[in-house]
Structure formats: C-alpha cells, structure tokens
C-alpha cells in the first residue's frame, strides 16, 4: 500500500522545505515553533550525550543559536531533526575538543585504550538526579553501564527513531559503522538491564 506512505513522505518533505525556507529568512515565529516542537527530543539527546543536565541546557540554547545563524545551510532535503542533532552533537564535540583536544568518538570509543567516561561513574551521576521515577532510575543506572558511543546510537535509533542513513549523517560515520555500533549497543543494553544477562 504505497498510498499512505507516499502521502506522509510527501507531507514530511513539504514540512522540511517549509522549515528550510523559514530558516533562510530567519523567521522568528518559525524558530519559536521549532524550539517548542523539538525541545524535549533535543534536550533528551543532549542529556544522554553530555550526561549532565546543566550542560545539556547550555548546549540546548547554543544549538538553537547555531540553527538561527546557519539556518541557510539547511536545504530541506533531509529531516530537520537529523540536522538539528548533528549541530547539537558537533557543539558537544567542539567543547570536548577544546577540553581534551580529541573527538567525541575517540574519547568515548570503548575500544580505545583510555576511553573517556562522559559521566564520572565513581560519583553520583547528574543525569541520575534528573530522573525522578524509581523505575527510570533503575533503567538509567543500567544505561550508564553502556559506553556513551553505544548509548548515543541506541537513543538516536530507538528513542528518536532516526533511520540508519540519517544516523550516519548525524554521526558523520559510514552506515556500516552505525550498524555495527547498533548491534553492539543492543547487546550491551540487553546485558545491562536487570535480568538481561540471565535470560
């Protein structure tokens, strides 16, 4: 049944074009609407990537300033959220580089000799404080066991529901690397959640 699929993909393409035109004009009303619309998803992504609520707030604001300044570079051919996450991610990487002079990938890659822990696991996690519900705390504690590089792809794929090619764009890595990270991440997730390893 291509009908509804075609209808929705055309609708999304139109929406992306409308956003691109609005960003070219730096339309303040459009930006207000986009901030409202994407606030939760962007903030959640930033909290997972930075592991820190205050930092995520700073990056959230900085991301939207970048969207305003560089909005003319969004051409509406891809999903807006993929572009938005790419901006957010690279702001975090730039910040990491300024701190450590390395990229987020190398810093968080568990296969590297000295992987960076975005969140210091020996201290109570700031992210832990963000999550109030007990169940969520348990899930979060489990997520913390997963290396950031895998946590990020899991969030993009299963929470943000980005396609694999869109993720490759956001992460600036080949599709095959996205897939291998997803498989490893899924394995890690299953192992990390309570009862996961036992089953």
């Amino acid at each position, binding site marked *: 049944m291509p009908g509804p699929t075609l209808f929705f993909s055309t609708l999304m393409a139109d929406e992306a074009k409308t956003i691109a035109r609005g960003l070219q004009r730096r339309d303040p009303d459009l930006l207000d609407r986009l901030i409202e619309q994407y606030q939760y998803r962007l*903030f959640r992504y930033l909290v997972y990537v930075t592991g820190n609520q205050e930092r995520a707030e700073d990056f959230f604001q900085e991301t939207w300033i970048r969207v305003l300044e560089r909005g003319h570079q969004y051409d509406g051919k891809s999903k807006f959220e993929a572009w938005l996450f790419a901006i957010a991610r690279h702001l975090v990487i730039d910040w990491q580089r300024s701190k450590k002079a390395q990229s987020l990938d190398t810093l968080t890659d568990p296969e590297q000799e000295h992987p960076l822990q975005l969140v210091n696991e020996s201290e109570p996690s700031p992210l832990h404080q963000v*999550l109030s519900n007990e169940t969520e705390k348990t899930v979060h504690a489990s997520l913390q066991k997963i290396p950031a590089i895998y946590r990020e792809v899991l969030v993009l794929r299963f929470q943000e529901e980005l396609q694999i090619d869109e993720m490759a764009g956001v992460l600036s890595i080949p599709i095959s690397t996205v897939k291998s990270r997803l498989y490893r991440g899924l394995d890690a997730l299953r192992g990390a959640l309570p009862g996961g390893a036992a089953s």
Partner: protein
Amino acid sequence: MSENIHQRALQLIAQARVEGMPETDAAWLGAHLDTCDSCAAHARQTDRSLRSLRSVAIPLPDGLARRTQFRVRLRAQELREREPQRRALWFACGVSWIFGGVSAPYVWSLFQLLGARAGLPKFVWEIGFGLWWTIPALFVVAVLLMEKVRQGDEPAWMRQDS
C-alpha cells in the same frame, strides 16, 4: 538443534530490531521461536530492554524553551542590525572596483604626467599606479579574510552537501 541455528536466530532477532529483515527470514525466525524457548526468551528480553529504553522520561527544566526563544530572538535582532553594515561594505567595494576600472586609463595618464614632472624613473610611477590599482582589491581580500575568520569555526558537517 545445531548451535549454528541458534546463532542465526539471535542474529536475526537483533537484525529485525536494528534494520529489519526480509520476509523469508522473518518466517524462518517465527517458526524457530515457536520451537526454541531459549531464543524466544532472548527475543522477549531484547524487546523488554528496548521498551525500557523508550520509557525513560527526562523532565524538561522550567522555562527552557522560553529562555531559549528569548536568546534566539535577541541574537536574530543583533544579526539584523549588522546586516545593513555588511551590505554597505560590499556596496562600497563594488563601487570602488567599478570606479577603478573606468578611471584606470585617466589615472595611468595622470601618473605618467606626474612622474615626468617630478623626474621619476618610469618603474617608480608604474609601481605607484599598480598600488593605486591593487589597494581596493587588497581591501576586499582583507574583508573576505575577516569574514572567514568570523565564521572560522564553521565545520564542514554543517553544510548539507554531503
């Protein structure tokens, strides 16, 4: 059952969640899960893990969107205010180029005349003319370099042509 069959089943369970799988594989996996408790438990655990991941809710800080909208509007205003200055600068550069091109033959004659009156060697007034001609261009290059420095932190990933 062979170990390879279970391996294939586990692989397909992951593949179905990550990137989807062909119908033939789905049918094979379905049939296998009906008969293999261990692989069926693995599939259920995978789904439970993903449900848990999706269920995590992160509360938004109060007024984050409002504060951001305010900052973005302020920045937009700054950019709007700077825009006429940039346009004026480019307009001045354009006028300078046009004027330089149109007046070049007259200025050449003027340099030649002044050079002869002052008794300067030919190459001296020719260099003078060359400088007169290149200074506006150097000015434009300086403006362009300043623009580049200002946007120097713009990474390639932000461009959409990839």
